[in-house]
């Protein structure tokens, strides 16, 4: 889904990041941006970090880590510091970063300037995928801005799922090798060219631009105590208007789907968090507030804040098997439990999807494998794949049993719902 697809959508609910778009229906140029938001506020670094800390902002790149903690860690680093804005959006289920960079690039660029001030960086890198159409938009946006800012370099990153994981990104920007490295040291201590590096998702940075102007109290007017603010969410699957929406965190999942036009046919489950996310059962998901805390309570996570509505006439096991194969193929092939474990898990899930596990041996083997893989790779890639597989076994348990009995499954060969490209 490109930003232009999303651009055909109706205005979002309570837009902050997308306010300019919602009101004017036009991509915000720098002049309009300055008219709407005014100049960058003159807060110093420590004040900025304090404000972000009180706002409770959590990273929007997948892990939901408290942003102020990372700002502080980088600010405390030794030597010259660097800010890296992660705009790669490697997860095929997500389109929100592309939409944000296309429609409101100057909020992200403001956020980069403020983050650089907060951590004391004198250079910044904005990373997107190689050959991305965003490169032209962003180069133009950078040209429109005045002088006197920390220079921002546009960098191209290979279109691989794992290449935009933060240690891989740092490795790529340092040496051209886009594979993850073992942490610690984390980028905050030793990042690009050995310097303390702040790696933040582009949406996270855009929120900083608004918090710096409107304050932490304003930021907390939306969302919950532990998941404050608004968030961009990519809604896909069997809904009338798939696309990117800005919602208050805490909105029930059913209301988010309704914002996207609502289901176009009866649903059986909702996939949450991007491909390395998890599954939510229905009707439970309908009432679940879209927050970090509620997602965690059911062993899921908001991840990249994507939702895919899976209709009844689909097979959750087959969908999961297909995505696991994709994630296995995207392994950087460096760590045993990932490079051997993920293909094994994908094979097992495919056997379950084909109804070829009459004895139940495969499902037990799969459970065991899911138990030993997490936490043993250099990066969190295998953990995401395992979370998705474990979620599928929970949410589609009845289907697994039915497949095992050999009852024919009508939907195993149905067209895919979860995007893998």
């Amino acid at each position, binding site marked *: 889904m490109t930003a232009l697809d999303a651009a055909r959508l109706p205005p979002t609910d309570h837009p902050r990041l997308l306010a300019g778009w919602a009101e004017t229906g036009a991509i915000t140029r720098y002049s309009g941006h300055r008219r709407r938001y005014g100049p960058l506020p003159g807060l110093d670094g420590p004040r900025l970090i304090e404000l972000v800390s009180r706002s409770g902002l959590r990273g929007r790149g997948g892990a939901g880590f408290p942003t102020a903690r990372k700002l502080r860690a980088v600010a405390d680093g030794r030597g010259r510091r660097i800010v890296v804005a992660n705009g790669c959006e490697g997860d095929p289920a997500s389109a929100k970063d592309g939409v944000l960079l296309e429609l409101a690039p100057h909020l992200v660029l403001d956020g980069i300037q403020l983050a650089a001030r907060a951590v004391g960086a004198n250079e910044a890198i904005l990373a997107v995928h190689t050959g991305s159409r965003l490169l032209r938009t962003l180069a133009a946006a950078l040209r429109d801005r005045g002088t006197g800012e920390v220079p921002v370099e546009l960098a191209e990153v290979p279109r691989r799922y794992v290449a935009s994981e933060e240690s891989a990104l740092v490795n790529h920007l340092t040496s051209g090798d886009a594979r993850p490295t073992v942490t610690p040291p984390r980028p905050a201590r030793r990042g690009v060219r050995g310097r303390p590096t702040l790696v933040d998702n582009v949406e996270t940075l855009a929120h900083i631009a608004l918090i710096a102007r409107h304050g932490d109290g304003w930021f907390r007017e939306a969302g919950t105590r532990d998941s404050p603010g608004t968030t961009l969410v990519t809604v896909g699957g069997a809904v009338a208007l798939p696309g990117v929406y800005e919602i208050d965190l805490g909105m029930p999942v059913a209301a988010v789907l309704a914002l996207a036009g609502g289901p176009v046919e009866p649903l059986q489950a909702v996939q949450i968090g991007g491909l390395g996310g998890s599954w939510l059962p229905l009707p439970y998901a309908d009432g679940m507030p879209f927050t970090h805390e509620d997602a965690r309570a059911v062993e899921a996570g908001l991840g990249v804040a994507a939702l895919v509505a899976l209709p009844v006439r689909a097979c959750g096991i087959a969908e999961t098997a297909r995505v696991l194969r994709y994630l296995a193929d995207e392994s950087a092939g*460096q760590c045993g439990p990932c490079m051997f474990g993920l293909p*094994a898990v994908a094979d097992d899930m495919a056997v379950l999807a084909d109804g070829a596990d009459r004895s139940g041996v495969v499902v037990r083997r799969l459970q065991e494998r899911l138990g030993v893989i997490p936490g*043993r790779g250099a990066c969190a890639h295998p953990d995401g794949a395992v979370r998705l597989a474990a979620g599928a076994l929970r949410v589609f348990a009845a289907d697994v049993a039915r497949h095992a009995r050999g009852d024919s499954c009508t939907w195993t060969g149905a067209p895919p719902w979860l995007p893998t490209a």
Partner: protein
Amino acid sequence: MAADRLKVGPIMCHAHGLCAELLPEMVRLDEWGYPILADGPVPPVLRSDARAAVAACPTLALRLRSD
């Protein structure tokens, strides 16, 4: 003395399996031959075995870290 913990560097480990051989009390191998380490600090009685396992790892993937 600070409690030492075993760590394996997942990228450097090439599944030689010597660590499980020398320190079976704390290391078992998964079905692909990669080590799964027991949680928690190395108990005093196993310290010298742990040091031997670290020294034997051909790729220097196994480490003792005090924390």
